[in-house]
């Protein structure tokens, strides 16, 4: 059976910059995006990086950024084609494109579908227009919902959207009302994130200067719990900390991240994680974040890798548990074995502490299947638990 593989494509331009965003991106330049140049660089990097993995099968492609829906559909098509020619796409491969709900981008949906995109993810974030404006987003809540409706028509069962809670001034009641509305329009998948203040972002500076006051930890906890309750009631499974899906419609690409699938990332600042076929070493690498420099490197050297490190077995084992436990299905010995060289979870983890957490209702340990998983309560405080049980 062929080893499954994923491709991540980072498209770095945006028309507006959100104050909370920590991704590597740039505003669309005055004279416009150099579509051909960027695409050409992406293709070069793609060919260099995918070539060693010809023997694998491409399970998913994810276009993120930036705002990938600002790209030209024909460029998207070129990338998908090029990828397929190097590492054949699986018959049920998932090809996701992230989009913003502005009308210009919504208008391109059909063309993206034609280009090969199979799944659409829309950044709604919030239905509160004032919050959207304060965060620097140039669309309304109504436009967000409309975008989802249109996408559902074109990509039935394959539409997802992002929501954020924990904005300044937001009450529990407001959040619950937003969720209720959004759930009416939901398709099969949604991501619900707590607003996180990342260093280097405008929001970070706002908070430090005390220009913004965010909800307390306990209020955020209540909002999180509301999301779990309300989404679950509507038939979504809370399969990962911030992700909900009708069973069977989980994000294949993201599940890959949490379950240790290999992937290559192309585009400025993109990360990769794969086993180098020639050395059999586990590699983690990152591309140059500066768009111009990255493009120059791709043109000159065929790729724009900034740094590359080897992941030790100890690190790989830690990661498998830390990421596995973000999912409600947790991690099994079978999956752990692929990085542990056969060592069982029972021998690796501090089982006495695991048992204590099981007794206290935070974890579930199924010894027959050798599966460790969090309960909903455990998932909510999983970071505290992980520090304790992982060596």
């Amino acid at each position: 059976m062929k080893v499954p593989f994923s491709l991540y494509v980072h498209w770095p331009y945006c028309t507006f910059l959100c104050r909370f965003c920590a991704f590597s991106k740039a505003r669309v330049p005055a004279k416009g995006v150099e579509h051909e140049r960027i695409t050409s660089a992406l293709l070069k990097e793609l060919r260099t990086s995918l070539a060693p993995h010809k023997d694998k099968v491409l399970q998913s492609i994810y276009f993120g950024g930036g705002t990938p829906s600002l790209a030209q559909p024909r460029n998207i098509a070129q990338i998908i084609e090029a990828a397929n020619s190097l590492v054949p796409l699986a018959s049920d491969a998932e090809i996701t494109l992230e989009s913003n709900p502005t009308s210009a981008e919504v208008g391109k949906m059909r063309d993206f579908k034609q280009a090969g995109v199979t799944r659409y993810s829309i950044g709604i974030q919030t239905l509160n227009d004032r919050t959207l404006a304060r965060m620097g987003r140039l669309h309304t809540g109504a436009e967000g919902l409309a975008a989802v409706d249109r996408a559902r028509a074109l990509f039935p069962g394959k539409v997802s959207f992002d929501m954020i809670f924990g904005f300044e001034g937001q009450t529990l009641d407001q959040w619950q009302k937003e969720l209720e509305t959004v759930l009416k329009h939901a398709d099969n998948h949604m991501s619900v994130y707590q607003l996180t203040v990342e260093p280097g972002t405008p929001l970070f500076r706002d908070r430090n200067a005390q220009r913004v006051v965010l909800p307390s930890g306990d209020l955020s906890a209540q909002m999180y719990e509301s999301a779990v309750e309300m989404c679950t009631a509507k038939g979504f499974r809370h399969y990962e900390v911030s992700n909900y899906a009708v069973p069977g419609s989980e994000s294949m690409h993201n599940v890959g991240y949490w379950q240790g699938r290999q992937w290559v990332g192309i585009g400025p600042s993109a990360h990769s994680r794969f086993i180098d076929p020639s050395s059999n070493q586990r590699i983690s690498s990152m591309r140059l974040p500066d768009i111009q420099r990255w493009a120059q490197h791709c043109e000159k050297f065929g790729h724009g890798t900034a740094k590359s490190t080897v992941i030790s077995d100890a690190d790989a084992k830690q990661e498998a548990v830390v990421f596995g436990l973000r999912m409600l299905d947790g991690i099994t010995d079978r999956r752990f074995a692929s990085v542990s060289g056969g060592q069982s979870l029972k021998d690796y983890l501090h089982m006495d502490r695991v048992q204590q957490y099981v007794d206290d209702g935070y974890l579930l340990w199924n010894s027959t299947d050798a599966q460790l998983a969090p309960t909903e309560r455990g998932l909510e405080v999983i970071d505290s638990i992980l520090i304790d049980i992982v060596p």
Partner: protein
Amino acid sequence: MNKLRVIDRKKETDISTYPPDLIRNFSIIAHIDHGKSTLADRLLELTGVISKTGKNKQVLDKLKVERERGITVKAQSASMFYEYNGQKYLMNLIDTPGHVDFSYEVSRSLAACQGTILLVDAAQGIQAQTVANFYLAFGEGLAVVPMLNKVDLPTAEPERAAQQIESTFEIDASKILHMSAKTGLGVDAVLPSVIENMPPPSGSIDQPFKALLFDTWYDKYVGVVCLMAIKDGSIRKGDRIVSNHSKQKYEVTEVGIMHPEPSPTTSLQVGQVGYITCNMKSVSEAHVGDTFYRDKHPVEALPGFVPAKSMVFAGVFPIDADEFARLDESIQKLTLNDSSVSVHKETSAALGQGWRLGFLGTLHMDVFRQRLEEEYDASILITAPTVPYQIKYRDGTTRFIRTPADFPDVHTMQDNVESTMEPFVLATMIFPERYLGQMLELCTLHRGEIQNHVYIDEARVLLKCRLPMAEIVSDFFDKLKSKSQGFASFDYEEAGYEASDLVKMEVLLNNEAVDALASVMHRSSSVVAGRDMAKRLREVIRRQLFDIIIQTAANGKVVARETVKQLRKNVTAKCYGGDITRKMKLLNKQKEGKKRMKKFGKVELPQEAFLTVMTKSE
């Protein structure tokens, strides 16, 4: 000669040409920051011992910790050659620590001298330690030669300072030298003044060898190095010497002077001060104050010293019990060069195996802790600095309590204890008159009994106050400084024990008493202190997956209660491919942080929790 002299260990200098007449053994005593170390540097430069470059700044302060704090912990000596009036003199500068905690070290080094420079900052004038050190030197029969430093400062008032000296110590103001060690002004006159005003050492070359051991340190290559003042006779390599105290014999392997590094000489003779190595294995064999004589030629012993008494105690425990052996080794190595730290092994129900260390003062303790953490990479918990309390039982027996957890509980108190006693000190404070109100208030706040206050000049007050030692062992000094904007100076001496109404303050976490957080205090402050402690603990204890109830109880009665509410949510919202590396770094960092926490039952306590019970907030 301004070049740095290269020390050739193989080449021995012959200093036998320096009879006592041409020798001066002197020290510099001063209040902190009055410029003692700078002056020492200047003299060493002047005599060519060190070069004039900035790198040699404060050469005598060897330890990194000392340099950081600008204080001298370890006393050293340095020998200099100086030509005066056509004669070549051997000048031995015996360095002394500047802090009241180290008065023991001061007295040891003074016994090796015949005179001392009393250095006073011309801008600050006489301070408490100036006074204390003067009386120490005077008591040893030393010639005290006062000198004014920092006359270059715009705030300097040399005439006023000279008057202060005259009125406090009855020394003729006109004889006082004015200088600036920093700029070099007037420094030329220092050594001539030392030669003229201080007597040469007494003793005879024809008498049998007799030397005073006044300091030691451990060198990993040669073993124990002894600093000695030769009182009679001479000594050279190959001689066999005997310790008067232990009667143990040693063969001398090397003798020399500190120049400023050890420089071998052919011999050391009467009146000279230098180092001797004699294959002594452990510092514990060297008893400071001991007399040494040549084998088969015993002499009358010199008067010894009173060993230093520990004033401040603290419990030291490894955070990780597995680290005990390594910490043991580190503490042994550190105390090798500091015999004034008293060491007792101790076991705590809460913290496992550790030590109760006794220090000369809080600065002494703090320097020790810093060295342990930095030089030996130790992860330690320090529990409340305590003073030794005394319990008198009804059956007539008395017992010293050094660990708060050992303090009798309320039942034992009622049934068996007659009285509880605490040690007192007599403190001397000197400050500008405008702070008198604040200083009086500070003393009364700390259960002090004002003895008297006098004006030592038109603007400065000297205040004497009797205080419980427990009141000055943590942040008293800091408060003194802040309430006087830094102008007040402080010194103290032991003043016996007195009966006192003491209670044991316990900290309970989820209803279990944590021994390591126990403290002893006067009943009058127990309620306020208990409330304060509970509040501050609530701030430093991090939320966990369950509620943590903090209670403080004085003699078994709860005085305050605070809750650290359980952590409801702790999970990273976004974790995708590009976040993996960062997330793992953070996780491992948090794991490291957790290692520095100590678990009591299920509750994790950070180091700060232990520090919290040590200090009182205002």
